């Protein structure tokens, strides 16, 4: 049997999902009321709101990957990125908004991983929306207590020679990991390298890998 669900299956063997015919929560009602008032009073148009939503949705890990690929191929840029990630990113034309950014470099002896134990701070301008697990209580609490075990569950077994540095994004800074460049990718162009940089490798729960 392809699936073992209790819910009845559609003719294509997928489970039916309940429609979202639930009543609005207090805050959903509030959001609609404020939005309609802003439009009614002429402060914003529906188009502007939709465009802003699209802009936010379009932010993706590709932005961060471009930054890392640049760092791998341009030692001067990498140095400035580690020194002042915000300024280096802006100077290279990456739109990171008002974000205060720190870039953390992985090496043969250091592995960095990012967590926000207090909420879910995440460099959205560079990585897009955070994955659900990043916001989960399990990831947020366990990563500061047993990072090696958490990373192993992501499939990342770190050797004894590697020191783990957990960065708790507690206040105003946002973080991006600059993973070490895989040996197999040395010599590739900046453009080709972008495809090696995964979202997870920039959070620190994965490594870059060949796109094919």
């Amino acid at each position, binding site marked *: 049997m392809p699936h073992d669900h209790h819910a009845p299956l559609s003719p294509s063997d997928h489970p039916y999902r309940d429609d979202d015919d639930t009543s609005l929560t207090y805050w959903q009602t509030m959001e609609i009321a404020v939005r309609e008032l802003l439009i009614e009073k002429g402060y914003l148009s529906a188009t502007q709101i939709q465009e802003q939503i699209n802009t936010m949705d379009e932010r993706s890990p590709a932005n961060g990957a471009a930054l890392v690929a640049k760092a791998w191929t341009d030692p001067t840029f990498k140095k400035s990125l580690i020194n002042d990630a915000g300024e280096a990113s802006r100077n290279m034309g990456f739109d990171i908004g008002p974000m*205060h950014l720190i870039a953390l470099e992985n090496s043969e002896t250091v592995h960095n991983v990012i967590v926000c*134990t*207090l909420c879910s701070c995440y460099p959205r301008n560079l990585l897009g929306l955070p994955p659900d697990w990043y916001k989960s209580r399990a990831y947020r609490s366990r990563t*500061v*207590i*047993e*990072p*090696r*075990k958490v990373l192993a569950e992501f499939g990342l077994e770190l050797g004894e020679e590697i*020191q*783990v*540095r*957990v*960065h*708790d*994004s*507690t*206040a*105003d*800074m946002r973080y991006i990991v600059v993973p070490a460049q895989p040996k197999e990718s040395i010599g590739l162009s900046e453009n080709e390298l972008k495809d090696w940089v995964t979202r997870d490798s920039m959070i620190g729960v994965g490594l870059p890998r060949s796109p094919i």
Partner: protein
Amino acid sequence: MKVRVLYQWPPGHVRTPAYLRGKVGIIERRIGEFKNPEQNAYRAKPDQSHLIRVRFKMKEVWGDNAERPDDFIEAEIYEHWLEPYDAT
């Protein structure tokens, strides 16, 4: 320079994680001045407070239960939550 995070439990919006209170670490870098979130969250006119990245050893934070004693945890702590620490 060694610093200790104040062991205190004020009410309200505080951005110092509970698990780091009372712990000793070293200053990793000074980031600059930011609005004090404890005031800013309530729309009080916020003071500026220096934000400092502090590096802690796992052993210091979790004691004998540390997964690996010499791994690090680093976090941003506002200056008004830190006091100089002298081990002697």
